[in-house]
């Protein structure tokens, strides 16, 4: 959601981004990274209840693409789209609470990591089954279309998730219905241990677009401005009734699939090469090199990130887990809660005796 155009700095600003926007992109990428680093520490301390999934090296693709949305638009993230959720307004406090399964977490301790939603702020949490969110987001954007609202949806899929039937059915449905949905494929080289060439024989993932009758574009996923620009164009087309676009953002997952993954399957040197292509370092250099921001500006953003993350963590670290009684409510709207099982609410005596009869045996 770019603010109005401005022209400060020696080089012209890229596309429709203002200096404020450029700093915001930096801020969100830093926030993603610092937040995840704190989570790593919490994970080592056993405070993160389940697994931890990093997006190290992918911050640009998440942040830049989400930044192309407007208020009222909706996105559905994947596990490596913490940055996208932060852009949409998810807070570090919420994220800490989720990972630590706190009572006050957005899902009240029911779901893990960043699997949480806020339709108001515009994000719909994923489920684990890969590909699922593509048809669901096709439905959300079908709603936009049916009700004639100029709103757009964005859904992420990994190189692995593109092999699922759900991806195929959902993208085809969206294409036929011409709903305002942008599909961003994050090609980060791996699905867990499986390299992209063992996931598909296609030369490029974006080659799938034509098979759905869609425009396809490919961009450098480690260039936050580029990810913003290609997504922005697709978002604009979608909003104008031009239907979905398939975007491939080429990036790299620098950490294992999850914290416990030692990446034994990586070819030698590959990781090191990508370390030289860190999206935050690259962007920082570019901001300074182009004169779009000063070292002090970035320092201010860095400090702000630290303060926010520290504040959020301090606030929730000692919060309690949810109370057990809460676990039974909300499977249905009606009835609002399930009964506790009989062996928990122990009846003093069997309640089903035939009146006046002696018990058996």
């Amino acid at each position, binding site marked *: 959601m770019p603010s109005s155009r401005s022209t400060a700095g020696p080089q012209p600003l890229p596309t429709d981004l203002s200096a404020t926007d450029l700093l915001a992109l930096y801020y969100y990428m830093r926030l993603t990274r610092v937040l995840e680093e704190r989570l790593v520490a919490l994970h080592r301390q056993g405070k993160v209840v389940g697994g931890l999934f990093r997006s190290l090296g992918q911050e640009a693709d998440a942040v830049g693409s989400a930044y192309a949305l407007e208020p009222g638009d909706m996105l559905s993230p994947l596990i490596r789209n913490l940055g996208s959720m932060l852009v949409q307004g998810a807070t570090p406090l919420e994220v800490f609470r989720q990972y630590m399964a706190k009572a006050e977490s*957005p*899902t009240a301790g*029911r*779901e893990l990591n960043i*699997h*949480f*939603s806020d*339709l108001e702020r515009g994000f*719909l*949490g994923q*489920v*684990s*089954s890969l590909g*699922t969110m*593509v*048809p*669901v*987001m*096709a*439905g*959300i*954007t*079908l*709603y936009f279309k*049916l009700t004639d609202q100029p709103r757009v949806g964005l859904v992420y899929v990994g190189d692995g998730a593109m092999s699922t*039937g*759900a991806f195929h*059915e*959902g993208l*085809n*449905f969206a294409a*036929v*219905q011409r709903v305002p949905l942008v599909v961003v494929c994050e090609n980060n080289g791996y699905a867990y241990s499986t390299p992209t060439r063992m996931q598909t024989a296609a030369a490029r993932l974006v080659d799938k677009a034509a098979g759905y009758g869609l425009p396809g574009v490919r961009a450098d996923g480690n260039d936050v401005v580029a990810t913003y620009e290609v997504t922005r164009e697709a978002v604009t087309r979608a909003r104008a009734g031009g239907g979905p676009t398939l975007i491939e953002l080429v990036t790299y997952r620098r950490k294992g699939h999850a914290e416990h993954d030692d990446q034994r399957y990586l070819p030698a040197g590959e990781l090191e090469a990508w370390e030289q292509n860190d999206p935050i370092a690259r962007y920082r250099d570019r901001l300074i090199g182009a004169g779009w921001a000063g070292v002090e500006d970035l320092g201010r953003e860095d400090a702000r990130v630290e303060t926010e993350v520290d504040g959020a963590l301090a606030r929730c670290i000692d919060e309690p887990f949810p109370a057990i009684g809460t676990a039974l409510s*909300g*499977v*249905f*709207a*009606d*009835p609002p809660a*399930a009964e506790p099982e*009989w062996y928990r609410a122990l009846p003093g005596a069997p309640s*089903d*005796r*035939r009146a006046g*009869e002696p018990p*058996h045996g």
Partner: protein
Amino acid sequence: MAETTYLEAIRQGIAEEMERDPRVFLLGEDIGALGGPFRVTEGLLDRFGPTRVIDTPVSELAIVGAAAGAAHMGLRPVCEMQFIDFIACAYDMITNYVATARYRGGLSTPLVIRGPSGGYVRGGPFHSQNPEAAFLHTPGLKLVCPATARDAKGLIKSAIRDDDPVLYFEHKYLYRRVKEDLPADPEILVPLGSARVARAGHHLTVVTWSAMVWKALEAAERLDREDGLSVEVLDLRSLVPLDDAAIVASLQRTNRVLIAHEDTRTGGMAGEIAARINELAFEWLDAPVRRVCAHDVPLPYAPPLEDYILPQAEDLVAACRWLANY
């Protein structure tokens, strides 16, 4: 008042809800110009237009997934599975996404999935299924199976108005074989979770639903005539929520119960009911709970084989006699 078939009752119920609530829309394969293979949605495209009657690609998973997304935003989608057997293709979406959405994240997902189910029509193994057991087990899904035209209408309307996902399994054998006089009342509503005594009796109870209700009534008639046995037939109508109270009340009157369903036996709904009866009313049982269900094989196509594998009225007669003599 005119005679309304079970099939027309479904169509009427859908049309009335579409009329009443602009959030209701339909999606499915060939439901528009064709009106579906059985014509359940015939005329609705003309009446409500292509934004409310959406023909989709052959993609059951996407149909349900898209319905879920639209439902989160406040719409009320009604999905058709061309034959209910193909609901299997959307199994992951239904059980892992739709059923859990409210619990996981407070996402309201009011949608209906409906389609022709059931056998006795020479449909072979893939056009005859009763997939209730596959979904019964997943918390978060409601499940209804009407037997009469009135309930077909009343339940589809209640399903559409319900704030939770509802699977509505209509029986294709009943589509045109069952009819009744229905008042032109747009408020025929049958609450989810309430069983119906289809025939009162005091010697034993047959608990059943859908097409099997008619076989049970036929058996009860014959047992009355030939054996002087008074058989109560309880039509569950909803499997989730299940009307435990009605089952227990009937059993407390008759002390003997037969559970009859068209689906195969092992892992079927009858097991769940048998367990609940044990838990809720064991002391009232004067005979073991027994089941009459299809044999545990894929449903064969040849008429004598299908007739053998599926339960018939005479099987219910035999089972009731056994129970009465116990």
